[in-house]
């Protein structure tokens, strides 16, 4: 199918993009790798798209002492290829290289993926595991949110009308940090049926674990110390994290594998 008609245009800079996004039914568009299929199926019928794919403000990669800010319009392929700085010892590159297929990764962006908030998407769960901060700008000014507060439900985020993601800030893991990410897909490149992530970063006193590809946003595992120390089994952790869902065996498998991958590092 073909998309319903819409208007389309670019923006000179972030300020112009913000002004354009204030219009009724106007959506930002970067790689259109998630939006494109939905528009082709006419599930999404925007009045207009503002192309933000090459806005300089969204294409920056900026280092701070403790983190790296990856511009929202940086593509998966740029992270995969190391063109954008990976603040981790290759964890983000590895995750990026497993998103969909290369032809998709060449256009799809990290900010677009997070704004789309597909529960089964890679960046949703990986940035949750890494403790990312989302940098947002919009009519009411700039603000930041921890990714777990940003992702609020399936395809649903804390973005207010007219707001857009500017950058994704990833904290640098310290010495001896370990990380494991596993997703279960039936075929390479498919959306995950289950996913899990574990981070143990002793230098920063940071431990995180989360489950993804649930009905909604990724869920942080509360008793992460016990999980990493091995006194809480993956089965127990999954059951405690998603008590309201039937405990999905695949999520137990994904968490078990994520823990095993973490131990290999």
């Amino acid at each position, binding site marked *: *199918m*073909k*998309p*319903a*008609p*819409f*208007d*389309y*245009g*670019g*923006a000179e800079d972030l300020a112009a993009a913000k002004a*354009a996004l204030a219009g009724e*039914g*106007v*959506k930002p*568009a970067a790689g*259109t*790798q998630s*939006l*494109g*299929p*939905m*528009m*082709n*199926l*006419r*599930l*999404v*019928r*925007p*009045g*207009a798209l*503002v*192309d933000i794919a*090459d806005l*300089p403000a969204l*294409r920056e990669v900026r280092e701070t002492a403790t983190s790296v800010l990856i511009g929202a319009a940086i593509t998966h392929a740029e992270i995969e290829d190391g063109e954008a700085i990976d603040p981790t010892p290759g964890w983000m590159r590895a995750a990026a290289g497993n998103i969909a*297929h*290369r*032809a*998709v990764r*060449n*256009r799809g962006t990290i900010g677009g993926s997070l704004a*789309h908030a597909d*529960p*089964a998407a890679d960046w949703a769960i990986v940035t949750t595991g890494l403790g990312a901060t989302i940098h947002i700008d919009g009519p009411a000014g700039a603000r930041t949110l921890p990714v777990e507060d940003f992702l*609020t*439900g*399936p*395809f*649903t*985020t804390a973005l207010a009308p007219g707001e857009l993601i500017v950058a994704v800030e990833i904290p640098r893991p310290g010495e001896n940090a370990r990380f494991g990410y596993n997703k279960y897909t039936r*075929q*390479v490149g498919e*959306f995950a*049926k289950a996913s899990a992530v574990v981070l143990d970063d002793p230098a920063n006193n940071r431990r995180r674990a989360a489950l993804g590809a*649930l*009905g*909604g946003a990724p869920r942080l595992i509360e008793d992460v110390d016990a999980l990493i120390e091995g006194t809480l089994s993956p089965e127990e952790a999954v059951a405690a994290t998603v008590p309201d869902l039937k405990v*999905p065996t695949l999520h137990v498998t994904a968490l078990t594998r994520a823990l095993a991958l973490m131990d290999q590092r």
Partner: protein
Amino acid sequence: MKLALSLNGDAVSEAAEPRTNLADFVRETCHKTGTHVGCEQGVCGACTVFVDGRPVRSCITLAAACEGAAVHTIEGFEDDALMAQLRQSFSAHHALQCGYCTPGMLVTAYDIVRRLPDADTATIRRELSGNLCRCTGYAGIVAAIEAVLAESPPPAAVQPLPRQRRAKPSLAATGTAKADTAVPAAQLEEMEPLTGGTRLTRSLAVEAPLAKVWAVLTDLDAIADCIPGAKLGTPPEGSAGKGEPFAGAYKVALGPVTATFRGAGLFCADAADHTGKVVGRGRDPLSGTRLSGELAFAAAADGDTTRLDLDMTYLVKGPLAQFSRPALVEALADSILADTADALAARARGESAPAPQRAASGLSFLRIIFARLFGRKA
């Protein structure tokens, strides 16, 4: 709007609508029909072309986003030694059968050879996994690429270009749109049996006597008011089954997805044993998604309170079903069931219905089921 880009090395300047995707632009406007369109959802890879030297899905890439770009379709490799070797190898290894997927396979193969010169068989297979061949000719395709990699292939003439800013038209200059068009009036479709659906159940104790709960369950207009976005229509003439016919529409938004389902249903209730059933069938005319739902309810007195059992089955067919994943849909449906149960309980207690809590306002297209279930023209 006017679109200018380089196609296979030639400057092209042609008119394109903002909604025109790159695949249709190269095929229908520029008559380069080697690029094939399969799924139009970015899944099959038949439409893969190079944009600025990188393989992309042209069916989910807007042509307008390629203003000023260098596009190479399968027709654009006539003097390219690497593509010549790939073609020869595809031929030698019987790597094309019907040929429909071949243009996309060759573009992807070219990218693999260029980017991953040390690729082993497993890597080739993984990289090719985004290109589907309905003849299942993968063994030949993989062998063809392996053979080229083993023969120290010639350098690729098409290389990734530096990413750069390109002037895009201002929003006001493109104007053709307007979004949602009117949807046709409801029609009472045949009430086929609902098979293969997902079933969810929920039981709750309502702090109100049975008579009050039953009054709510049979005052469907009041319940429809509890569900944001629902609209009752004029019931269709004639009904295809027993029960009371109703018509309705439901506009919902799930993240970026919007759908307006229109449809009809039947309601029946048995006051003798306080049970009832509602069946509904709806369709979003613009996406063609069809939604069917059935809700059986049973109320029973339990002292001063009432036990209410809800048993819901739903089935989604068409684009939305293709797009969604069962776990996601089920979690949504369950939260909607919970919200609805809360609303029912509040009404029965004489309170105004609470706003949906678990499923944020307008969260799910599945709420249409409840519009069906409880929407009726008295």
